[in-house]
């Protein structure tokens, strides 16, 4: 929202010496964020009003007109590009010798072979950019040749961020901002200038009959009929101010309602008084159509609140008037509406019909119902200066069935000071609150604070709200930072956090994986390329893009996509993501945290090696962070396109299956493209939620044995199809008092190992705490272990 400093000066004395940028900064810190400050400079001098005497064409130049002007005793002939000019109207004119920054000095010249003695100024030259190329018209009260006051053309404009005042209905007009500025500057706020309608009214004037069917949606409706208005230009000072705050001057009646909206924040609507008798406020008929004054026919639901007259809709309440009852060129009587509408109803209707206006934007903020009457009084004050024949044609009629509750907040000054962490005494609090319109009574060490109506619609209702008023006016920059004094409390560690941090530490800081963050929804296109159809999962009503509706149930599709992206720029890489995967169901329990790993290398045939090193990485992590060894179970139930039919294992930790490790089958890689087919990729996905109870227990370290121990290696030839785990189980059954440890060394297939067989090598450690083993002992142990191997049905490789 744009704020004119000239306008503020009507209500508070802002010293000329005050730097507007400094004021804007104080406003930002105290009240609302200022987004920008702009000085409006027109450099205008020598401008006068001129009456249009005639408008004629310029041969061959459709965009130009030959205009004769009456300059008051003198006349002038100019060629003008102004799109609309009407005989007898007064325009802002720059005669030769006058100047503005935009036009430079005006000289007598020749345009299209015609003499042109001056220039009819467009809005942009005198600081009304919204009027752009249009001529600016003067009100009929001005005389041809009358000098135009240049001071009103120069101004400063402060832009307030609308988002920072959504909760402050009082700040949607200059008077509310002026109240804040007055408090900041420590100056008084001048009373709001209004007409005394009672004094102007004749008791015999009729009431406007107003019926409100829905007092929740329309707590108050005020109206006043008046005659003696006509279509004419608004005073120039009003047009310039509207221009400075980004509104386009149109016509005195429209400009008046716009001006008051920007002044007090209260939207008003002027109906053609000859077409409206009484007012009924009620809900629309479902499916009713209504043509708003922008000429659009709109279909309404039964939720839309309508202003009706004689059961005929005349306005979409609080949003826009109707085309039929609009004020026209020949209107002499108007019915002025100033009402209060409930915010959420307006929001709903605006959303339903897809129309938002300056008026509805304000009603959505919960406006002060007391502004309905105040704005009508303001209108009469301003209008009577412009329309000499203005007469009231009704009493000020006011239906107020749903009165705003008065709010008084009990405030403990000590608590306020303590919560601020800053010494503020009671007197300072009272001064601050009084300056911004609160009524304060001090009693028994407590403050009883009466909230003014313009802050009471939703903004302020509890002590913390009053605290904010005090604290922001003290200035947050005046509060000395101080660290809290607290009692120590121990919190049990969050296992999710610990598990995830440990996983990232192990894989990314230690084991060479690079962490990525990927989107939590699937991309349908990519799934198609993978050849993957996920089971039903949670789907978005409003996806970021079509095809990105479903939330992921696995990290792998995203990681494989990232791998496909990275393969252009690297020959080998390892990726890691810790993220959320989802299951269908309206419960936050239907999600879990997974760890996804990918190890990729350019070149076919490295599957087995990557599979083995990835498992090695998992084992290192498990040992460091879970405190256990991992086991693998041959996984038979092939599940996804990225799972290999044979080279897949379930990962088991302490008896729990915690994930899967596999390699990407060639078929899947080929589905993506030929390039990925030439890569080897191993992957693992772990459900981290199952690891919360794992604890790394410190294992006792071994003493160096007192007597030397003997290490013997045994290589077993076993069927290539029989699993390692079964061999282990069999070896573990060997028992001897001198046995210390059996460890797995490695597997071998190839030369000297017959086809269909695999050689597994184990290292067996023998020793005694009492003596050095003799050669006979060792021979006996060797024979005994070999016998055990034979007993298990395994052949020994010599």
């Amino acid at each position, binding site marked *: 929202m744009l704020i004119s400093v000239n306008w503020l000066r009507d209500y508070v004395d802002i010293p000329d010496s005050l730097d507007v940028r400094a004021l804007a900064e104080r406003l930002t810190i105290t009240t609302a964020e200022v987004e920008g400050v702009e000085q409006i400079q027109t450099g205008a001098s020598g401008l006068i009003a001129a009456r249009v005497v005639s408008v004629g064409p310029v041969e061959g130049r459709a965009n130009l007109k030959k205009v004769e002007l009456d300059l008051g005793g003198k006349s002038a002939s100019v060629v003008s590009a102004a799109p609309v000019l009407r005989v007898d109207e007064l325009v802002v004119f720059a005669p030769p010798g006058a100047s503005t920054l935009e036009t430079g000095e005006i000289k007598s010249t020749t345009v299209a072979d015609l003499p042109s003695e001056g220039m009819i100024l467009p809005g942009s030259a005198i600081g009304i950019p919204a009027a752009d190329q249009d001529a600016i018209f003067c009100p009929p009260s001005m005389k041809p040749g009358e000098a135009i006051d240049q001071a009103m053309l120069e101004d400063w404009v402060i832009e307030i961020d609308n988002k920072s005042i959504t909760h402050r209905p009082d700040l949607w007009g200059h008077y509310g901002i002026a109240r804040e500025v007055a408090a900041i500057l420590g100056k008084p706020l001048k009373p709001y200038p209004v007409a005394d309608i009672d004094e102007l009214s004749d008791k015999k004037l009729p009431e406007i009959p107003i019926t409100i069917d829905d007092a929740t949606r329309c707590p108050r409706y005020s109206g006043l009929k008046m005659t003696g208005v006509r279509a004419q230009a608004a005073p120039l000072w009003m047009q310039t101010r509207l221009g400075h705050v980004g509104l386009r001057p149109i016509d005195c009646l429209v400009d008046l309602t716009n001006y008051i909206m920007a002044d007090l924040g209260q939207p008003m609507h002027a109906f053609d008084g000859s077409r409206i008798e009484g007012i009924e406020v009620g809900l629309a008929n479902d499916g009713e159509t209504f043509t708003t004054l922008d000429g659009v026919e709109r279909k309404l639901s039964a939720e839309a609140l309508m202003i009706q007259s004689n059961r005929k809709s005349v306005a979409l309440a609080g949003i826009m008037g109707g085309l039929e009852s609009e004020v026209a060129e020949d209107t002499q009587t108007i019915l002025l509406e100033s009402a209060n509408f409930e915010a959420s109803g307006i929001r709903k209707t605006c959303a339903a019909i897809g129309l938002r206006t300056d008026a509805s934007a304000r009603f959505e903020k919960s406006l002060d119902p007391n502004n309905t009457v105040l704005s009508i009084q303001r209108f009469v004050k301003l209008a009577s200066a412009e329309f000499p024949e203005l007469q009231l044609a009704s009493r000020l009629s006011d239906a107020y069935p749903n009165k705003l509750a008065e709010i008084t907040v009990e405030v403990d000054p000590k608590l306020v000071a303590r919560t601020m962490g800053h010494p503020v005494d009671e007197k300072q609090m009272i001064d601050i609150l009084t300056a911004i319109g609160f009524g304060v009574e001090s009693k028994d060490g407590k403050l009883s604070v009466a909230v003014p109506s313009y802050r009471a619609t939703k903004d302020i209702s509890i002590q913390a709200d009053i605290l904010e008023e005090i604290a922001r006016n003290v200035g947050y920059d005046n509060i000395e930072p*101080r660290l809290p004094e607290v009692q120590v409390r121990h919190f049990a560690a969050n296992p999710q*956090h610990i598990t995830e941090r440990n996983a990232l530490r192990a894989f990314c800081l230690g084991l060479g994986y690079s962490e990525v963050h990927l989107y939590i929804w699937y991309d349908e296109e990519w799934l198609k390329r993978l050849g993957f159809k996920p089971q039903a999962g949670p789907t978005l009503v409003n996806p970021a893009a079509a095809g990105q509706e479903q939330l992921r149930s696995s990290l792998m599709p995203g990681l494989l996509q990232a791998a496909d992206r990275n393969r252009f720029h690297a020959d080998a890489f390892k990726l890691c993501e810790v993220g959320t995967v989802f299951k269908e169901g309206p419960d936050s329990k239907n999600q879990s945290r997974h760890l996804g790993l990918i190890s990729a290398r350019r070149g076919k045939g490295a599957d087995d090696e990557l599979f083995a090193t990835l498992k090695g990485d998992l084992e290192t992590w498990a040992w460091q962070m879970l405190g256990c060894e991992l086991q693998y179970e041959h996984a038979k139930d092939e599940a996804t396109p990225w799972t290999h039919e044979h080279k897949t294992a379930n990962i088991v930790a302490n008896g729990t299956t915690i994930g899967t490790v596999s390699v990407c089958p060639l078929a899947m890689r080929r589905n993506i493209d030929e390039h990925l087919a030439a890569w080897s990729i191993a992957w693992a996905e772990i459900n981290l939620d199952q690891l919360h109870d794992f604890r790394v227990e410190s294992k006792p370290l071994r003493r160096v044995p007192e007597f030397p121990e003997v290490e013997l290696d045994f290589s077993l030839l076993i069927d290539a199809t029989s699993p390692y785990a079964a061999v282990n189980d069999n070896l573990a059954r060997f028992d001897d008092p001198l046995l210390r440890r059996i460890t797995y060394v490695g597997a071998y297939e190839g030369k000297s190992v017959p086809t269909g067989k695999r050689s597994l090598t184990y290292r067996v450690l023998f020793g005694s705490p009492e003596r050095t083993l003799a050669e006979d002992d060792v021979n006996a142990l060797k024979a005994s272990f070999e016998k055990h191997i034979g007993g298990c049905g395994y052949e020994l490789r010599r």
Partner: protein
Amino acid sequence: MDVGELQQTLDKLHQEAKGELAAAKTLDELRSVRSKYLSKTGSVGSLMGTIKDYPPQQRGEVGKTLNSANKAIQELVTEHTDRIGSAEVAADAAASTAFDPTLPGERTRLGSVHPVTAVQWEVEAVFERLGFTIEAGPEMESDYYNFEALNIPQMHPARDLQDTFWLKNGMLLRTQTSPVQIRAMEKFGAPLRCIVPGRCFRYETIDASHENTFHQVEGLMIDRNVSIANLIAVMKLLLNEVLQREFEIRLRPGYFPFVEPGFELDIACLICNGKGCATCKRTGWLELLPCGMVHPNVLKAGGVDPNEYGGFAFGLGLTRLAMMKFGIRDIRVVNSGDLRNLVHPARWAGPVIVDKG
């Protein structure tokens, strides 16, 4: 063999050994020559076993003769060990003159955490030192935790500002980490100090400065007598530690339904140091995080008595902070999974000699 013949044989062996030792070029060769003569089975060593063949009165002399021959060869071995050793030392020294000790080391190829994670860990460390616990919460969240319990009822205008990803099952993707305020209060009660790093989602169009998926860290402190002065001090400390510079910060009014009063916290612009530039829209300040004193309704929703306890809360944009710290200009990089953007080249390629961006 009589003693005289023995002596002659030993002299001959001594001469042979002397020649062979002098010819040895390495310690290994030396060792095999030594073994050839002096080991149990060597040509001198094996003669030791013949002592018992001599008459007892001669054995003393034979022993002496053999010992001195043995000793003489051993001395030659020692002499040549020194010769070859010194030569190796000299060769080693000569070879080392071309060694450049200033070359960079050969690196183990380590991994890397995401820039957001790196910043997150720094923030966590600051708060752990202040006695805050670190909590977590779900990304698929209910309307109740994301809005209602946070004093944002149905039809509240603040819901407009929080463009939400809604799910067909009635749940939503959390728009902020704030729902975990309620969850943490339910879990721990008061007093409470916690932070909650996590992912949030907003339904908005992605461009260089807007993402629909980003990280925040929520902070919540509830105790008796928590003040605005405390909030300012903690925020200042956090930013100074994480950005490793002293920063001017300022609070100004900001409206968020779950706090009262609510603030926007700005820091002096990092680019222009507060003088005003394009990044800070000429204001000299950058909007960094919303914060405020916890609204009594939020305390109540979390089961905490607002008459007894109060507190502050804040929501720091981790993604934004990571972008500032790592100089990431385009936010789309963050969720791209593209390692060229996420990992500094020196990490993999070795030291960077010229870097022009």
